[in-house]
């Protein structure tokens, strides 16, 4: 009997004798299960409708005889609240339900249904109402934008309008089984007895289960190709086959709603996009209006208020911090953040029966930062401020609720756990501060799961490794003060640059090194920036206050320089770039590399799968051109001459000037990006320069040779990377040390890292350029140099890896691309294997043997159910050719008995044996067990490698 069954059984028994139900503690004692575990199960059961709980404390539970299973519950409560919605009695919901039916539109009360979601709602209704069976729909939106919520609304709408016959909203997340396509397929389509080991009975899949209702497929981009095909077939014909059947004889009437976070431009989705008539794009949180943001916040807070049955009081700055704390996670993140601060507030206001108060000072740091994030966006802040009251009180409101099918919902009642735990700790005699501390750790643990998926904390932690936490904290304090008191606009890199600066300065003072001199240059430069000098004085005071030692006047000047360099630069229009290339992800992966390396935003990709028609491609490229244009024209990089005629057509279509270059390599894209983004050039100039950059024939060998020659003649200078900080001595030195290590680690010995101070930067760089060719720059400020700039954040976060790939791109620009072509081309792999076989082996006939070994690989791949990369395939073919040749020359490998016996227990051993048996049949060659050992080892090494890569 499981814990859950025990609890249910006990409740059954007790409910008969005691009408008022039992408490968690009673159950815990009676069945001997720890209280928190009981509590968790109970909440789960409440949620499933199997049991009910009473109002008031202690909470008592009774078996819910009225509700048998989940589906009936759906029927009872279309607008389900949330776990533990005790105060909303079933009665009121029922009334509301009957009143609503057929009259009120469920979309009406959805926030934004008349604003940012207006079109989306219209689309959804159209899709559902379209005769006779509606249209399949794809919902696209970033993480946490409310795709599941929206789909749920669609379901309720369909239910209310009686356009679906069955009450069922079946949810399936394709990511859950993405690593095991067969399992996924069996869940979706069902299977017949004997379809695979363990299939002891026929089983229906979710498609059948959803017959007459709606099937919601989340993260549909994770659906494997086999699944896509079957789903498409099902969409077209309404029939499907279960696993193990050949005829598509099953019929189901299912409305399909798909959802994905994927970029609709990605080629994978394009297959879907082409076949699904209705595409609903949900906006991210930041695209919503200030009013809607506030409404969302209120609604989510109301949920929490309902849960704790208390009012929630919060000030303007808490509201702003919460709204500003939303980065990539959208409404889902807002929900998690609200849960976090409410849990904290609940803990701190435990003594107050009617109300909890959220204080700004008590917010976790990442949410506090939200305030400064918001402050950076003046317009948004202005819009919000107009709507905000100094304080906001949220009252529990039974009428507002969200459906509980939601990955952001915790699987237990957090407040109950907090309450229980606090009581427990109090009994133990702990004081309030200790209790709060203890429980906060707990709350964080519970809520961390959301953040663990993202990268929110990563940035600061890597900075942690080089700078003391104390200095980071101090810097944050300075940042806040500057923002609040001085109205100084602060960019993202402020924390990095400032804390590194302070850190190196403090170290200097502590080690007793002489003070820096103030040069005349420095003084004259700073005098152009009186405002920054004034702020620098303030910062100096703050640091003096904190460390309690005097800071020399010269530092104020350096600080002022730093502030000047950190000030945001005004944005100017840049020439846009669109990269269009054949292949499923060739263009987008190149663009990704380049935009990461150079942190540029004027570049877009368009992937063209081979089967795509030119017409579709033209339209697709045109829309990308429109997206990326900032008014100064667009440069189009294409991988085939035939596309170069697009220029005039595109200009005609979009009214944007377009120039086309028929050459795409990562190096080319890099060159284009840095010419457009880093140096202000107009379209004609960039086009002309790029044409010269690669205006020669496209044969790889020739290009290679010419390029080498050209470089040798034109540039005899040594290569250098410039690291910039305000003094050229502090942060820049650290960067130099870091980079030197990375360079050595990558065996790069021909690049020097040179440190430069912001003072006189232009002159210094000009001087360096006489001797060196600058290949990249990094530091607190981006100099005007025709070389990629890597921001401090990127440098420190990636551990310098991005720098290395950048350097490798510069040194030899094709490696990544070739590897990718290799992985995409079967033909190429086979051809190449044959070439290498001829090159390295003496006795075997490459043309004859390559096919046999190719099949050998397929055989093993099929049976071991693991995918081989093309590189590994070549490796295995070469290895097996070696084994055959060793057999022919009677020089087979040897392996000791221990190895031979250990290999027999390997999972792959029988498969390799079978494969060798096939070789035996074809070639009459019988490979020894020692050879089998080495073959299995080859696989193991490969596996070990991919495992370490994945970790």
């Amino acid at each position, binding site marked *: 009997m499981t814990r859950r069954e025990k609890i249910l059984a006990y409740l059954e028994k007790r409910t008969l004798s005691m009408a008022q139900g039992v408490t968690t503690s009673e159950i815990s004692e009676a069945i001997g299960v720890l209280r928190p575990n009981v509590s968790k199960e109970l909440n789960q059961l409440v949620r499933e409708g199997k049991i009910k709980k009473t109002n008031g404390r202690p909470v008592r539970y009774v078996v819910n005889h009225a509700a048998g299973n989940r589906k009936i519950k759906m029927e009872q409560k279309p607008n389900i609240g949330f776990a533990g919605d005790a105060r909303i009695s079933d009665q009121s919901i029922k009334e509301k339900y009957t009143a609503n039916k057929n009259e009120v539109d469920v979309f009406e009360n959805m926030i934004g249904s008349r604003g940012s979601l207006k079109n989306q709602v219209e689309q959804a209704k159209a899709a559902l109402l379209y005769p006779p069976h509606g249209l399949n729909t794809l919902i696209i939106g970033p993480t946490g934008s409310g795709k599941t919520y929206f789909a749920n609304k669609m379901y309720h709408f369909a239910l209310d309008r009686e356009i679906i016959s069955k009450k069922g909203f079946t949810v399936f997340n394709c990511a859950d089984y993405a690593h095991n396509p067969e399992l996924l397929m069996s869940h979706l389509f069902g299977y017949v007895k004997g379809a695979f080991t363990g299939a002891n009975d026929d089983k229906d899949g979710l498609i059948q289960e959803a017959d007459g209702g709606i099937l919601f497929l989340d993260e549909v981009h994770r659906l494997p190709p086999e699944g896509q095909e079957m789903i498409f077939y099902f969409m077209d014909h309404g029939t499907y086959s279960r696993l193990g059947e050949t005829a598509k004889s099953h019929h189901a009437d299912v409305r399909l709603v798909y959802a994905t976070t994927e970029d609709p431009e990605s080629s994978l989705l394009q297959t879907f996009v082409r076949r699904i008539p209705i595409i609903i794009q949900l906006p991210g949180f930041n695209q919503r209006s200030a009013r809607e943001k506030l409404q969302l916040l209120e609604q989510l807070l109301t949920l929490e208020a309902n849960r704790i049955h208390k009012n929630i009081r919060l000030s303007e700055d808490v509201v702003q911090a919460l709204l500003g704390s939303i980065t990539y996670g959208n409404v889902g993140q807002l929900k998690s953040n609200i849960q976090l601060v409410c849990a904290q507030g609940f803990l701190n206001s435990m003594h107050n029966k009617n109300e909890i108060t959220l204080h700004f000072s008590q917010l976790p740091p990442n949410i506090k930062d939200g305030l400064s994030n918001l402050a950076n966006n003046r317009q948004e802040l202005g819009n919000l401020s107009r709507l905000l009251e100094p304080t906001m009180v949220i009252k529990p409101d039974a009428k507002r609720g969200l459906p509980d099918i939601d990955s952001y919902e915790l699987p237990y009642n957090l407040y109950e756990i907090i309450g229980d735990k606090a009581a427990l700790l109090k009994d133990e005699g702990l004081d309030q501060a200790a209790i709060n501390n203890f429980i906060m750790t707990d709350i964080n643990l519970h809520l961390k799961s959301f953040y663990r998926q993202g990268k929110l904390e990563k940035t600061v932690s890597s900075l942690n490794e080089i700078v003391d936490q104390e200095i980071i904290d101090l810097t944050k304090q300075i940042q806040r003060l500057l923002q609040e008191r001085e109205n100084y606009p602060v960019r993202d890199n402020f924390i990095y640059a400032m804390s590194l600066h302070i850190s190196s300065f403090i170290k200097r003072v502590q080690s007793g090194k002489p003070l820096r001199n103030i040069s005349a240059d420095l003084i004259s430069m700073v005098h152009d920036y009186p405002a920054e000098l004034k702020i620098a004085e303030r910062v100096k005071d703050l640091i003096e206050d904190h460390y309690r030692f005097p800071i020399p006047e010269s530092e104020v000047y350096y600080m002022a320089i730093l502030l000047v360099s950190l000030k945001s630069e005004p944005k100017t229009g840049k020439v846009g770039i669109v990269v269009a290339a054949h292949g499923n992800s060739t263009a987008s992966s190149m663009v990704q590399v380049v935009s990461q390396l150079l942190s540029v935003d004027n570049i877009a990709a368009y992937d063209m799968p081979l089967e795509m028609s030119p017409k579709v491609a033209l339209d697709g490229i045109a829309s990308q051109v429109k997206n990326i244009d900032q008014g100064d024209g667009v440069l189009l990089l294409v991988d085939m001459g035939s596309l170069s005629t697009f220029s005039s057509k595109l200009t005609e279509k979009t009214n944007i000037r377009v120039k086309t270059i028929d050459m795409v390599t990562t190096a080319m894209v890099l060159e284009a990006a840095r010419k457009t983004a880093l140096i202000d050039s107009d379209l004609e100039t960039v086009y002309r320069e790029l044409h010269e950059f690669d205006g020669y024939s496209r044969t790889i060998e020739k290009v*290679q040779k010419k390029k080498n020659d050209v470089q040798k003649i034109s540039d005899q200078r040594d290569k250098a990377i410039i690291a910039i900080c305000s003094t050229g001595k502090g942060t820049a030195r650290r960067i130099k040390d870091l980079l030197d290590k990375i360079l*050595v*680690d*990558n*065996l790069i*010995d021909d690049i020097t890292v040179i440190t430069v101070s912001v003072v006189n930067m232009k002159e210094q760089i000009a001087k360096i350029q006489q001797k060196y060719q600058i290949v990249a720059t990094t530091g607190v400020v981006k100099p005007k140099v025709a070389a990629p700039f890597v921001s401090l954040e990127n440098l420190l976060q990636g551990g310098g890896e991005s720098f290395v790939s950048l350097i490798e791109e510069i040194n*030899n620009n*094709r*490696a990544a691309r*070739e*590897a990718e072509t*290799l992985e995409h081309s079967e033909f190429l792999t086979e051809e*190449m294997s044959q070439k290498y076989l001829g*090159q*390295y*082996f*003496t006795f075997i006939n490459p043309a004859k043997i390559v096919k046999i070994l190719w099949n050998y690989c397929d055989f093993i791949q099929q049976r071991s159910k693991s995918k081989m*990369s093309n*590189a*590994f395939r*070549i*490796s*295995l073919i*070469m*290895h097996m050719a070696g084994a055959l040749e*060793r057999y022919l*020359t*009677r*020089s087979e*490998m*040897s392996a000791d008995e221990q190895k031979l016996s250990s290999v027999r227990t390997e999972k792959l051993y029988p498969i390799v044996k079978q494969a060798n048996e096939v070789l035996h049949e074809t070639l009459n060659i019988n490979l020894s067990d020692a050879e089998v050992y*080495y073959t299995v*080892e*080859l696989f193991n*090494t490969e596996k*070990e*490698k991919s495992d*370490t890569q994945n970790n």
Partner: protein
Amino acid sequence: MTMDVRLLRIDSRLLHGQVTTNWAKAINVNRILVVSDRVARDMIRKTLIVQAAPPGIRTNVITVEKMIRIYHDPRFDGLKPMILVEDPVDARCVVEGGIKIDSINIGAISFDNTRVMVTDTIAVSAADVEAFKWFHDRGIKLDVRKVSNDSSKNLWKSLSEKGLV
């Protein structure tokens, strides 16, 4: 102190599968250096080689000139590499560049029409023989082994038996 070269190996296929993994484990190296001007220029081969490298050991493909350069550069003293070259001529260039070793491991040299077979897996050309002579004259051992636990055979003996030296 200079770089501690743990093994210099001649193998036409340079780095491949199990053989390299076996050696890397047996002789405790922290880096694999594939030294070949040809491969350093051939991106596809370079990619294949780097992808076939054993887990946990970084692999670089570099030119002969660079090999010699970094060998004498004190910044790279911490390396304990296994050096892989394609043929005896490259091996000679490396040793002439100052890299100190007292034996050379020969795995396989593949046959082509300029070469004759000396053992099952080793074929030599006139230039190769010239290079092997050069090594022999400097007292460098020519050790024939596929994997580390094979018993070692002296290539000089096979060359003499064939009347090539």
